[in-house]
């Protein structure tokens, strides 16, 4: 007797192979669509791949944990990829050295704007305390943001989702926004993209321009440090002021 397709699915979904293969397939399909849409920022590959995978897992009733057993091998590569960002960063070293002061000030202001404006806007729109605390580190790259959320008393896995949403939004709006207000310097705009929308924004910035991507990578790394250092210390004051 030949097994039914559902039996095969149940068997395969118990091995890491399925989650891993589906992730790669969904991403390549998403890239294909992205190219077909003339690389329009709204056809973001992360967004498309996530949408496809969520739809598939929901339809088949596969739990996220089962999927992640396989997908974790892709997730793991975030670590070495983060380390590898040092290389494009080093390529910008000469330009960077001349910009240390603007970078330090931009980092401080950008980092605090990202966290405080999110908490304030969320509060004004009626968000719960748990959501506000999960929102605060949303501009920082996923692994750092989850660690900060935990320390603040937020929900790390909700933070991971908000981080991804922020990244996708930043990747979509940054270029049209900067074109509209007339900011063209790849270093300054790349840096802003890295502060506001971490790795996903950085990935987008690299697609456009090597220098923009390098400054985005720098901003992402620095913002990880700055937010991790400042937020657990400063956020309680804001939360107390909001009551």
């Amino acid at each position, binding site marked *: 007797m030949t097994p039914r397709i559902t039996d095969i699915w149940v068997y395969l979904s118990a091995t890491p192979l399925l989650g891993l293969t589906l992730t790669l397939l969904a991403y390549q399909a998403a890239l294909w669509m992205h190219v077909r849409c003339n690389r329009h920022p709204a056809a973001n590959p992360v967004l498309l791949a996530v949408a496809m995978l969520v739809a598939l897992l929901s339809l088949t009733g596969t739990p996220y944990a089962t999927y992640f057993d396989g*997908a974790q091998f892709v997730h793991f590569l975030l670590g070495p*990829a983060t*380390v590898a960002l040092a290389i494009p960063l080093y390529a910008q070293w000469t330009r960077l050295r001349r910009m240390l002061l603007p970078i330090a000030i931009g980092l401080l202001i*950008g980092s605090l704007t990202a966290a405080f404006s999110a908490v304030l806007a969320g509060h004004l729109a009626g968000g719960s305390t748990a959501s506000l605390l999960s929102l605060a580190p949303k501009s920082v790259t996923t692994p750092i943001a989850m660690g900060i959320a935990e320390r603040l008393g937020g929900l790390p896995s909700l933070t991971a989702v908000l981080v991804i949403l922020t990244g996708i939004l*930043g990747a979509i709006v940054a270029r049209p926004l900067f074109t509209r207000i007339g900011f063209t310097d790849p270093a*300054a705009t790349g840096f802003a993209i890295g502060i506001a929308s971490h790795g996903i924004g950085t990935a987008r910035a690299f697609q456009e321009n090597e220098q923009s991507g390098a400054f985005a990578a720098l901003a992402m790394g620095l913002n990880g440090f700055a937010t991790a250092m400042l937020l657990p210390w400063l956020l309680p004051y804001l939360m107390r002021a909001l009551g």
Partner: protein
Amino acid sequence: MLESITLLLVFQLAGEVITLMTGLPVPGPVIGMGLLFATLALRGHVSNDLRQTAQNLLQHLSLLFVPAGVGVMLHVQRLKDEWWPLLAAVVVSTLLTLVVTAWVLHALQPATEKPTDAAP
């Protein structure tokens, strides 16, 4: 290729060890990035192999965020209940941060790039 991947993992591992030993609230890979950057700056050059490996890895950086993104599945209820404050916060904060940060760099950059301007 193999050498460069090993190098990246060694720096990541060193970063993790430093994080664990010092209790810094920064994840290991970010410390690893800092260490590798410092090493490259001191040595003054990057090998072709390392450059190529980094390029291959970073070319598909977006892919690496997909597994975490699928985690949205776990929060459907909260997103339904609180979609408005969460959306408002993400949109307002992202736009504001982009504009403010780019503006600060834009405003400060020409002044500091003038050779006559002494840095404070």
